[in-house]
């Protein structure tokens, strides 16, 4: 049984069928990149995995535990002893909290979780206050370490508006990492960035790959996808048209649609260079 099993995911928006039965398996520590033309359901797939959208059908299993569809019993359990998140998400537009510093952006959810855990353990009163304070101090330490790992040790006290796009996205990655998700999803993490800032973000993602993180990355950066991924998923018309190693997809695509898409994106890249 694979670590992540996605089976037959369907999603409609009204009359529009966006996902028409998407299935794939993924092992722990693998990195998948999802490519495909605009409007083919890449974002929608990530959003279904993160429960930002509720799929209309299908099944998602992580580490043997079915997380979608979920029954009432499972919901209760997930709420109480959620020590880690199943999926983390990094958005195209970062979505940092503007009123908090980089550090607070990261500790906010950690602190809430610490509080939840204490509540679940029925700790109360002064004892709870003390433990929560301890936990918060530890969270801050952890957050600082993570920020250092993404190269932002000098920006911890800065507000998002004081950071460049690349720095903001690195804070967003740190924020997702801080909750140690099993699988980290990226939706076009560099699309909103000036070209000269994409490198620093891609470098962080590569570093995470080397640490053995399980990641799913929707991207238009073909070179990057080729270098960083164990598998490439090519989506067309709401299904996985073709899936394989970077060598298989980029050097020997089987499907006509894949070939057409790749030659189009090659032309575009050549166009940028000219």
């Amino acid at each position, binding site marked *: 049984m694979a670590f992540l099993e996605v089976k037959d995911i369907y999603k409609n928006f009204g009359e529009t069928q966006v996902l028409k039965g998407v299935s794939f398996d993924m092992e722990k520590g693998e990195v998948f990149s999802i490519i495909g033309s605009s409007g083919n359901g890449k974002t929608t797939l990530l959003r279904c995995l993160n429960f*930002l959208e509720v799929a209309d059908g299908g099944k998602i299993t992580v580490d043997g535990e079915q997380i979608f569809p979920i029954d009432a019993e499972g919901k209760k359990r997930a709420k109480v002893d959620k020590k880690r998140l199943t999926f983390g998400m990094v958005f195209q537009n970062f979505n940092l909290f503007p009123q908090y510093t980089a550090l607070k952006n990261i500790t906010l959810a950690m602190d809430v979780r610490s509080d939840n855990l204490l509540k679940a353990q029925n700790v109360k009163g002064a004892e709870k206050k003390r433990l929560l304070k301890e936990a918060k101090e530890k969270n801050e330490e952890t957050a600082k370490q993570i920020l250092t790992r993404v190269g932002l040790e000098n920006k911890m006290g800065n507000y998002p508006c004081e950071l460049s796009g690349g720095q903001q996205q690195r804070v967003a990655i740190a924020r997702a990492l801080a909750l140690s998700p099993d699988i980290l999803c990226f939706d076009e993490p560099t699309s909103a960035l000036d070209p000269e800032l994409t490198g620093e973000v891609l470098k962080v993602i590569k570093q995470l790959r080397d640490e053995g993180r399980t990641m799913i990355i929707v991207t238009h950066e073909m070179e990057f996808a080729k270098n960083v991924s164990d598998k490439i998923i090519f989506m067309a018309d709401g299904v996985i048209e073709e899936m394989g190693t970077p060598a298989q997809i980029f050097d020997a695509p089987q499907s006509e649609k894949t070939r057409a898409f790749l030659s189009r994106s090659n032309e575009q890249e050549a166009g940028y260079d000219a």
Partner: protein
Amino acid sequence: MEQFWDIIIELTEGFGNTLLLFAVTLVFAFPLGLLLAFGSMSKFKPLKWFVKVLIWVIRGTPLMLQILLVSFIPQYVFHVPTKELAAALNITINTTMFLFVALAFVINYACYFSEIYRAGIEAIPVGQYEAGQVLGLTKNQIFSKIVLMQVIRRILPPMSNEIITLVKDTSLAQILGVIDLLNAAKHAVNHYVILTPFVYATIFYLIFNGLLTLLLGWIEKKLSYYKV
């Protein structure tokens, strides 16, 4: 000189009522307005439309009409004359009148505030909610820890306008005989047959609004430590 101090004391007493009405209105209309805002954004259609119609009616009619209506309802709808109502509540007629005015003000201002809250809440990008959601926060946590601060910052300028307007609206209280600042000034003008009480009242209003403007501006500046 003695006359001057008599007038000032009268005006100060009137100003006390003005201030009280101002404070009571804000204390109750702030939270009630937020509740109405949630109601007007509710997914439960009947509630949503009820609140929307209420807001439309309140904002579309004069506050003075609403004050009169509130004061007549006990007598005309429940057949309880104001005198009996005051006796039953063990308060003076004057206090009863003040409560009528305050009630109308609270409802009226809550409706105005609710529209400001709603606009402020709807202006928060959906990405803020989604970021909170994927971090495992509940709806309430997202609102209180992420959205609320941003809403407050956004609504402060329009709120400030309403608050300044409220200071001036308090003078409507005299329709039920409440001795507010302006009513006190009017009494003094009639009594001493001079116009200066109006000048003093003007100065009272201007000083109070000036201080409020400074305070609100200071809060606004405090909250502008980040850009959106």
